């Protein structure tokens, strides 16, 4: 199978199983890109997410575009993004055309309650492995804790947090280099 088809089908699968937003696809991205294929390491994955968050557009689409471009240039970016949106197009068009009351179905609601628990568990597991690999000093733990607290306790928006953390990283690395 050529690489464009691989990108398309990989992101088609991720789009199909990411229920409830871009963060939900992180465990799947990590298992496919880092563990199974070795296309990226944990550091790069966090870079994609950070850039996807701080730039215009939907995070899931930004991340798909980024990874597709890294693998196969412009054609790869288009293939990955097309794969990501295809399940939405098919499923939402079907729902919009057929049954407006699907949401009220008690079986659908019960299944989604269980799916939400699974999604929360997977995200927690992914976070633990990412933290293990990217925390190398108290300074990184402090940045993570600071960003978490800024959102959860103070309701801060992601963009200013990313910008502030970038500025802090730049200042810190300059100081370290000046000392070295």
């Amino acid at each position, binding site marked *: 199978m050529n690489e464009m088809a691989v990108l398309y089908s990989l992101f088609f699968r991720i789009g199909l199983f*990411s229920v409830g937003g871009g963060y939900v696809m992180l465990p799947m991205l990590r298992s496919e890109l880092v563990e199974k294929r070795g296309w990226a390491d944990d550091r790069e994955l966090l870079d994609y997410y950070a850039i996807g968050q701080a730039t215009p557009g939907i995070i899931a689409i930004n991340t798909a575009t980024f990874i597709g471009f890294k693998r196969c240039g412009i054609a790869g970016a288009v293939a990955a993004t097309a794969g990501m949106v295809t399940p939405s197009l098919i499923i939402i068009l079907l729902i919009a055309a057929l049954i407006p009351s699907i949401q009220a179905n008690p079986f659908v609601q019960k299944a989604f309650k269980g799916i939400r*628990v699974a999604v929360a568990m997977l995200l927690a597991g992914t976070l633990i492995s990412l933290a293990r690999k990217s925390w190398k000093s108290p300074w990184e733990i402090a940045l993570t804790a600071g960003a978490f607290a800024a959102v959860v306790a103070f309701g801060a928006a992601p963009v200013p947090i990313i910008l502030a953390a*970038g500025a802090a990283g730049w200042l810190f690395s300059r100081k370290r280099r000046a000392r070295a």
Partner: protein
Amino acid sequence: MTLLNLYLTFFKIGLFTIGGGLASLPLLQESVVNSGMIRQTEFIDMVAISQSTPGPIGINMATFAGFKLAGIAGGFVATLGIISPSLIIIMIIAAWMKNFASRPAVKGVMSGIRPAALGLIASAAWFILQKALFIPVSPDGESAFSIPALLLFAGLALAYRLKPASPILYIVAGGALGLLIF
């Protein structure tokens, strides 16, 4: 609404959505509800369905709204509109990163952003966990802590630790067990 107008409307929404599909809600509300194209109640149903069906919320919303406004072609055009800014901007950044990633200044900036991104992901996980464990008990939206949900969480976490498999398997298992226990 012509297809070109639809494309431009959703291009604008994509361009000004920063940080997650839910961030596109106020923009969508402004351009399709306040202008009278879609009724408020229809809009709320649209949000609920987009959140609980596969795919990024922003894409689901765009497909839905586009379909309501201009049929199947509208669904495609609105989706194309909302992803166009991402495609353009991210490809420019990715191309630029290739050349500049080894510069010390870029490395310094990224060394600060990476752990902060981890914190942002943790905050999203926190909100998702709350939603998963505190389940609505009455029709007016009151929620209570759910012991079955906690047990399901513990069971899935144990399975994940003992024998890590594809995330898709846990999502399907969560849905199936949800049918049984809730």
